[in-house]
């Protein structure tokens, strides 16, 4: 009896197709919500909430799909040299609507000609997920700072919210075997960005992430290190 789809190796294909199909519907849903919201001048709190939730599902599915490809060895980074500001801008643009809704003041400190080597689509998507979190938990301001540190390029996202809860601060984000902290949207987003950072390698160094509550704005601070 061949009832278990795994036994004929079709499961991965079915999984990928299903996720793809859900993403397609979700895209339509999201677009309809936007169009409806636009007709009502974006005043409806329920519609905004609906849009936010749909965007979140979309993000999670994208991450799931990438993680699945990593797991089945169908993934490798597409490393290119790219201006950092373009990566940061892409993340900000993805979250532009949310930032506008909450009236958040988004400040960026990044030199226009600062370059880095990375898979820019993957990194900007990961940053967008972290930024999404920051936008939800901050009060008024978010600061994005790009710098160089010990031979790494760092991109920090800082807010003026309440900071990360203790169980995140105690976790080793870069030990992807120890997954107690991976739950909820924040945890999943951090897990994703930490795996993606780790895939970036150069001259014996690997990328990683760090979180603490040392933000100069008084809230949480997320920091991505790219080799």
């Amino acid at each position, binding site marked *: 009896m061949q009832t278990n789809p795994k036994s004929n190796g079709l499961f991965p294909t079915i999984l990928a197709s299903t996720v793809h199909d859900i993403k397609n519907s979700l*895209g339509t849903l999201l*677009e309809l919500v936007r169009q409806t919201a636009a007709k009502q001048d974006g005043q409806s709190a329920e519609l905004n909430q609906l849009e936010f939730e749909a965007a979140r599902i979309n993000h999670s599915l*994208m991450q799931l799909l990438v993680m699945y490809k990593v797991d089945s060895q169908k993934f490798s980074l597409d*490393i*290119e040299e790219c201006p950092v500001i373009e990566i940061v801008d*892409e993340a900000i*643009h993805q979250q532009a609507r949310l930032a506008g809704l909450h009236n958040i003041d988004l400040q960026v400190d990044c030199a226009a000609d600062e370059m880095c080597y990375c898979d820019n689509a993957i990194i900007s998507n990961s940053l967008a997920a972290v930024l999404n979190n920051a936008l939800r938990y901050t009060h008024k301001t978010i600061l994005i700072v790009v710098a160089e540190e010990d031979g790494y390029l760092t991109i920090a996202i800082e807010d003026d919210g309440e900071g990360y809860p203790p169980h995140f601060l105690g976790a080793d984000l870069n030990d992807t075997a120890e997954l107690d902290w991976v739950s909820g949207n924040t945890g999943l987003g951090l897990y994703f960005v930490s795996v993606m950072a780790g895939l970036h390698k150069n001259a014996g160094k690997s990328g990683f992430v760090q979180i603490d509550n040392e933000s100069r704005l008084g809230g949480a601070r997320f920091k991505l290190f790219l080799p």
Partner: protein
Amino acid sequence: MSFSLAGKSILIVEDNPVFRKAMRDMLYSLQAVTVVEADNGIAAINAMSKSSFDIVLCDYNLGVGKNGQQVLEEARHRNLIDYRCVFVLISAEQTTSAVLGVMDSKPDEYLTKPFNAQQLMSRLTRNFARKEFMASIDKALAGGDLSKAIQLCDALLLSADKKMHLHLLKMRAELAISAGDFDKARQIYHEVLEHRELPWARLGLGVIDFQNNNIEQAIAGFQSLVADNPMLMECYDWLGKAYEALDQYNDVESVLQQALQLSPQSILRQKKLAEAADKNGNLETAEKAYKSVVKLGKHSVHRACSDFSGLAKLYAKTNAADEALKTLEEMRKEYANHPEAELRASTVEADVYKTLGNEELSQKALLKAVDICGRMGNKAPRDLQLEVVKTCFLSDEHDKAEEILYDLIHAHIDDEQFLNDLRRMQSGIGMDNHSEILIQKTKQALIATNNKGVALYKQGKFAEALALFEQAILTMPDNKTIIVNMLKIMIHDLKVNEFCEEKNQRIKALINKAKQIGVDQHKLGILQMEYAKLRQSQTAKA
């Protein structure tokens, strides 16, 4: 942001009306005026043949018919869009060329759904800035002026634009390879790799090894590269080419299998797999691959009648005569009044009817094949001519077979890969070494002609040398060595003797001929560069 879409003509290709409206609204909010919409691939191709677009926003998944990648391939293949057009491929998931099975045509940008106006705007701004920066080089390349492209690229490299520097270096190295200047290309790749281990630079070094005929070294490089970058599909293609150069078709087959497991949508790769597996006698793999080719070809600009005849031949080999005849029938429907298709069909039919014991129909098909082959002459693809030869031998039409063979060997005497195919065909029908004497004799004749021509050339007797080669080309049409030698002599002639328009025209015609018969780009590139320099100094004098 100062960038606006006013004055840009834009094509939206999207089957979902909700997304189509969303994109349209987005574009109007960015001051777009000219927006054309298409809801399927064929409508998109029609729109592009009618007018030219600055921007094409094309969804990958267009329901039935062509997908977005196939729209792009057809648009580029048929020159419906040029180097100024920004083609954005949109899809629901984060996609890369590997996932979409891209082999030879990448879009300018990938965009993941859903996206908003800011994202679209920043991507378009970036692409237009890049295109504008590279426009002079792209224009020179589109006009076939390699030497001008190199000059412009060197000038831009000096302008020290940090953002574009690496992009320019990559372009410069590729131009150097096209011009046969491997030292320059190698130097650039090493310089890049000193800063950062980048797959394209590593790949470039392998390509140089390959072109320099250091095939083993190229293979070693490509192998370690795919080990670290399993999704670098280009690298599998180069590996396949390298194994092919060594006549190791088992390795060609396994490398293509590997690539297709990761990226099954590429019709060109499936074709190569089918051919390799066929050569190796792995009929099951070949059949499966040919079936995929026929299926993928349905909406692809890369489809060909040989896809059908390839599948039909396989059915014939596995004694599935009915399937073979059915496939040929389908092929005739798809390719009505197409001499090559008719030739392919008749050749396979002759074979199939023979195995069915129907001598009369077999003979009829063979006569038809020989007739079309004779009428097409050199225009009939050489693999197909080999097929006809084979069928002639099997049907005891030896005279006809030898006649075609004679021409084939003379035309392709300096193509060892083809000669190997020929030998394989003869071994396959129990005629080992049948043409060896003719091959050796033809080779010697070519060498003799070459030596004589080169000797005349060294004595400064250019006209005599050229006349000799002109004579030789009558008996060895499309011979690459002779064409290249003629070009060398004519260019040298320009160096020492005076310019005249007639010589220029002749050189241009020879360069075109060389391109046509498939002289390696880098071999031709060296001559093109030399010629361009001569012309420049000539115009400077005038």
